[in-house]
């Protein structure tokens, strides 16, 4: 049955038929009897005292059932703060109520909620809510927030600094003193909006008879959400059910516990009616977490031959007004990954997390690692420029060599496996690096500006060992062989586009010899699936898939015992071959997993002491993170008249270890590159000095369209890991991490004739035009 192995082949996704025919069920498609609709009233001010919330007119509007302010929720006993997960002893953690009680701290913070029979009426009634504010001083930028006398986001803390994490190793001062060249550069990772095409949404249902609340939410973490809701609502966890139905993209933004989720559940309990809230895109820009937003003052020290000897970075991370689930943790990953794929023994790093009157930052695809890769990859190019060396040569000289793995970095991480030079050489060859360099020289003579950018990255993912991230490290899988031989897989991860309904079925089909159509992969419902952690940090296959592999092994072991009993053989002489149980030395004996499952169901065919049924639940605790890597090469041309960038060629050679489905892996890389390129060229969340969001819609915030992105040429190398039994590394974030610096390096390479060393992202045409104009032949443009 499993003569043809599915693992490693581009099996079409089993998710797709329902998606391409419009028959999938996203949260907004959930409709329950008696369902009512919530609308949130949000602050137009970035910082203000709430003087008065008058809900009377809204409540009197026909069709409105109820309305509550933050103070009302408090009075009703809903006083819990939204959760933040961290391991920092000195972290400042101000309260974060689902609805602001006496003060608002960013534009878009919810101050009240109302419930109506119909979403149209809810919107009408929201216009009738009157909130009186007393404006307070505002601080939006981190450096201003750290200055003496700055307005305080949380007056009770006495400071805007939430934490500082220094990390020193080796002898950085000695290294810098003995270096031949030192390059200093301020590098900014601008704030980004995740923009999943499906915004957030919830439907909360209260079963008064059972005393249970069910929350359908567009989330990446249904089980963690259930736990947190039970704490917030004061319900036994068994009385909370979280369901992630079809989820329309997350990218980290739905790896959270949001105010609206808690409030909707509370409202359903309070009103005894199912409550739906569907986020508008405008709300999403204001009140869904943002990503990045770091300013890094960097210094890198090198020998004349290009050997890097030391790295310094002072990183200021804009946390926004409150901690969301992982707000303080994300910037620490930047520090840990600062050395990248290079041997850098001497580091002096520090990250400081700072509160401002803006929406919280948190995990957005790559989460801390794109920032790190951007820093080191920009610095490598700057060193090359300073030394007059080829950027590829400087990288070659500093790569951690393949024989050095496992390699412990100066920042204390242990890279599992890698061959960085291999991906770079392959990428350079695919991009015809020497040929492009020659063309670049020829075009420059014509006044045309071609640029080539490299980025070699290593990232930390497969989140992660519990030692590093308690309660979010492991994941789980259950396999049930049903009496008729079909197989149910329950996975603790919560895929939302990553395709594990297919890849996990491929794995089970191969290993247990079951037709893929007879396998159901179930996820995203805490009542159906054993506790799991979720999908984020490129962990789905590396952790959830590994747990599934363990469950397969347990099923196989039991099936072997059943077959051995049937055959009167010693279990030690039995083995799984091509998905079937066979007897060593006797090719006539064969039993399928389905047959063993049926015997296990009948119960009377089992050896003494063996329980009936053929199922297994296993959990995988990874001993380490995994460290995928790769090299991206980007070729651009900059229009000398307008500053507009055209990406001419994009080559990515990634290594994520073993691959279950190459088609799906490539799709992940494509999407990742698109988001990384978007940071380089197009996207930026901009608040003005009053904390007003200037990029609050898709008319202002430039999520790239098809015509704004190029074709991507992909290739792979395969360097397995021993961290998990599948030998897989994650691939969800790799593209994003690799792409951003490749694009920026390419553009700055193009502008080298103008003496331009650095331009901050996004590389808007105007910035490039200005840079070219001010430095070229004294022709000053602005």
């Amino acid at each position, binding site marked *: 049955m499993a003569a043809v192995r599915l693992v490693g082949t581009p099996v079409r996704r089993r998710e797709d038929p329902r998606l391409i025919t419009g028959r999938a069920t996203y949260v907004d498609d959930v409709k329950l009897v008696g369902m009512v609709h919530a609308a949130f009233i949000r602050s137009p001010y970035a910082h203000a005292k709430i003087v008065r919330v008058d809900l009377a007119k809204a409540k009197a509007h026909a069709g409105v059932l109820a309305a509550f302010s933050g103070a009302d929720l408090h009075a009703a006993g809903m006083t819990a703060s939204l959760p933040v997960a961290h391991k920092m002893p000195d972290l400042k953690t101000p309260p974060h109520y689902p609805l602001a009680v006496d003060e608002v701290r960013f534009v878009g913070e919810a101050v009240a909620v109302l419930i109506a029979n119909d*979403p*149209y009426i809810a*919107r*009408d009634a929201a*216009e009738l809510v009157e909130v009186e504010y007393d404006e307070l001083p505002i601080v939006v930028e981190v450096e201003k927030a750290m200055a003496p006398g700055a307005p305080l986001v949380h007056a009770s803390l006495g400071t805007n600094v939430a934490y500082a994490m220094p990390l020193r190793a080796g002898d950085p001062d000695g290294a810098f003193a003995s270096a031949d060249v030192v390059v200093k550069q301020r590098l900014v990772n601008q704030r980004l909006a995740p923009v999943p095409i499906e915004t957030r949404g919830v439907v909360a249902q209260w079963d008064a008879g059972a005393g249970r609340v069910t929350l359908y939410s567009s989330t990446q973490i249904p089980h963690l959400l259930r736990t947190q809701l039970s704490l917030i609502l004061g319900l036994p966890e068994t009385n909370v059910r979280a369901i992630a139905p079809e989820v329309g993209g997350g990218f980290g933004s739905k790896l959270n516990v949001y105010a609206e989720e808690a409030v909707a559940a509370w409202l359903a309990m309070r009103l005894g009616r199912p409550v739906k809230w569907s986020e*508008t895109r*405008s709300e999403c820009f204001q009140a869904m977490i943002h990503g990045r937003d770091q300013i890094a003052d960097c210094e890198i020290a090198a020998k004349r031959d290009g050997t890097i000897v030391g790295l310094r970075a002072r990183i200021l991370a804009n946390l926004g007004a409150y901690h969301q689930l992982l707000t303080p943790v994300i910037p620490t990953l930047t520090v840990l990954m600062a050395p990248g794929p290079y041997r850098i023994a001497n580091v002096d790093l520090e990250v400081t997390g700072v509160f401002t009157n803006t929406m919280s930052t948190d995990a957005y695809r790559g989460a801390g690692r794109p920032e790190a890769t951007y820093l080191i990859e920009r610095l490598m190019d700057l060193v090359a420029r300073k030394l007059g060396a080829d950027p590829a040569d400087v990288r070659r000289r500093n790569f951690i060599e393949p024989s050095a793995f496992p390699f412990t970095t100066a920042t204390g991480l242990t890279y599992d496996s890698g061959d960085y030079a291999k991906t770079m050489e392959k990428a350079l060859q695919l991009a015809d690096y020497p040929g492009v360099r020659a063309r670049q020289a020829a075009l420059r003579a014509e006044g045309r500006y071609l640029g080539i950018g490299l980025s070699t990255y290593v990232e930390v993912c497969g989140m992660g060992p519990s030692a590093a991230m308690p309660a979010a490290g492991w994941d789980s899988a259950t396999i049930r062989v049903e009496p008729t031989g079909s197989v149910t897989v329950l996975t603790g991860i919560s895929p939302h586009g990553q395709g594990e309904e297919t890849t996990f079925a491929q794995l089970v089909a191969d290993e247990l010899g079951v037709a893929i159509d007879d396998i159901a992969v179930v996820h995203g419902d805490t009542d159906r699936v054993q506790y799991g952690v979720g999908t984020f940090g490129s962990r789905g296959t590396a952790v959830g898939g590994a747990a599934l592999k363990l469950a397969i092994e347990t099923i196989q072991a039991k099936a072997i015992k059943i077959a051995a009993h049937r055959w009167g053989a010693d279990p030690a002489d039995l083995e799984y071959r091509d998905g079937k149980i066979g007897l060593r030395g006797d090719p006539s004996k064969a039993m399928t997993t389905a047959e063993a499952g049926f015997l296990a169901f009948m119960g009377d065919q089992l050896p003494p002491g063996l329980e009936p049924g053929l199922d297994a639940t296993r959990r995988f605790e990874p001993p380490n993170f995994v460290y995928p890597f790769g090299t991206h090469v980007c070729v651009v041309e900059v229009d000398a*008249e*307008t500053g*507009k960038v055209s990406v001419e060629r994009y080559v990515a050679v990634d290594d994520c270890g073993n691959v279950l489905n190459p088609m799906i892996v490539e799709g992940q890389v494509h999407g990742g590159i698109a988001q990384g390129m978007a940071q380089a060229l*197009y996207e*930026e969340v*901009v608040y003005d000095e009053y904390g007003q969001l*200037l*990029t609050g819609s*898709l*008319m*202002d*915030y*430039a*999520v*790239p369209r098809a015509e*704004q992105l190029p074709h991507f040429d992909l290739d792979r190398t395969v360097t397995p890991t021993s961290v998990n039994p599948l030998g897989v590394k994650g691939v969800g974030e790799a593209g994003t991490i690799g792409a951003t610096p490749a694009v920026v390096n390419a553009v700055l390479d193009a502008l080298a004739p103008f003496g331009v060393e650095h331009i901050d992202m996004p590389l*808007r*045409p*105007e910035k490039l*035009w*200005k840079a070219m104009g001010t430095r070229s032949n004294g022709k000053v*443009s*602005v």
Partner: protein
Amino acid sequence: MIPATFNYFRPHSIEEALLLLRQGEAAKILAGGQSLIPMMKFRVVEPKTLIDLQGVPELAHVMWAGGHCTVGALTTHASLAADADVRRKAGVLWDAANALGDPQVRNLGTIGGACSHADPSADYPAVMLALDACFIVAGEKTREVAAADFFKGTFETALGESEILTKITFDAAAHSAYVKLEHPASHYALVGVAAVLVMSRDTIEDARIAIGGLADAPFRAGGVERRLRGIKGNDGAAIKAACTGAVTGQDVRSDVEASAAYRTAMADVIAARAVGAATRPR
């Protein structure tokens, strides 16, 4: 995002529409709705009466009589963008119809709606100015308004409260083109330049150059027009020189994406590109 309530009417003639417009409370005309409906959803505009013109199909047409064209106000961008005559005889309009919005917007949006809306970043206003188009306006009595007098400012036109734009007329412009520098998110013009040239063999005899996206309303670049006269159409350097300093004395817009200085400088670049494109056969 949900609009406020309103009364909806679908008249079957212009006369009926005008009557509704005069009688209806806070009445607005609905053509393709591609600008109006998003504004209503944000409640930036809250008409109490909405008069849908789709029951007046005679407003959707493109008619050529000799070298003269009449375009009905309800003609969609998509039909202009797919019109071979428009492409050949009024390339500047064809370019804009293809460049604005996106395919879905072009399938519903109309030329009359877009012109009446008068978004300063829209593409048609500059095109109309360069075409020296004439706007036929129905009201108490039918009147004609020259493009130069039609666009008054941001979302502001010469249309009276009880008037409806019914047709736009212009002369063929065989040597014409529209080029824009687009906002990366909205598709709107950071700078859009419409060029209509009168060519004698390969020499530019006369030019009408209109610039949009920069100021509250589109404007003609008189200096550029004068400097272009007598230049050979294939003399790129001379065209560039003529287009330098295209913007003078305008209050140029500035935002996150593009400063006034950049837009001003880009007007020269885009003007030269538009003129270059206009000199080439379509």
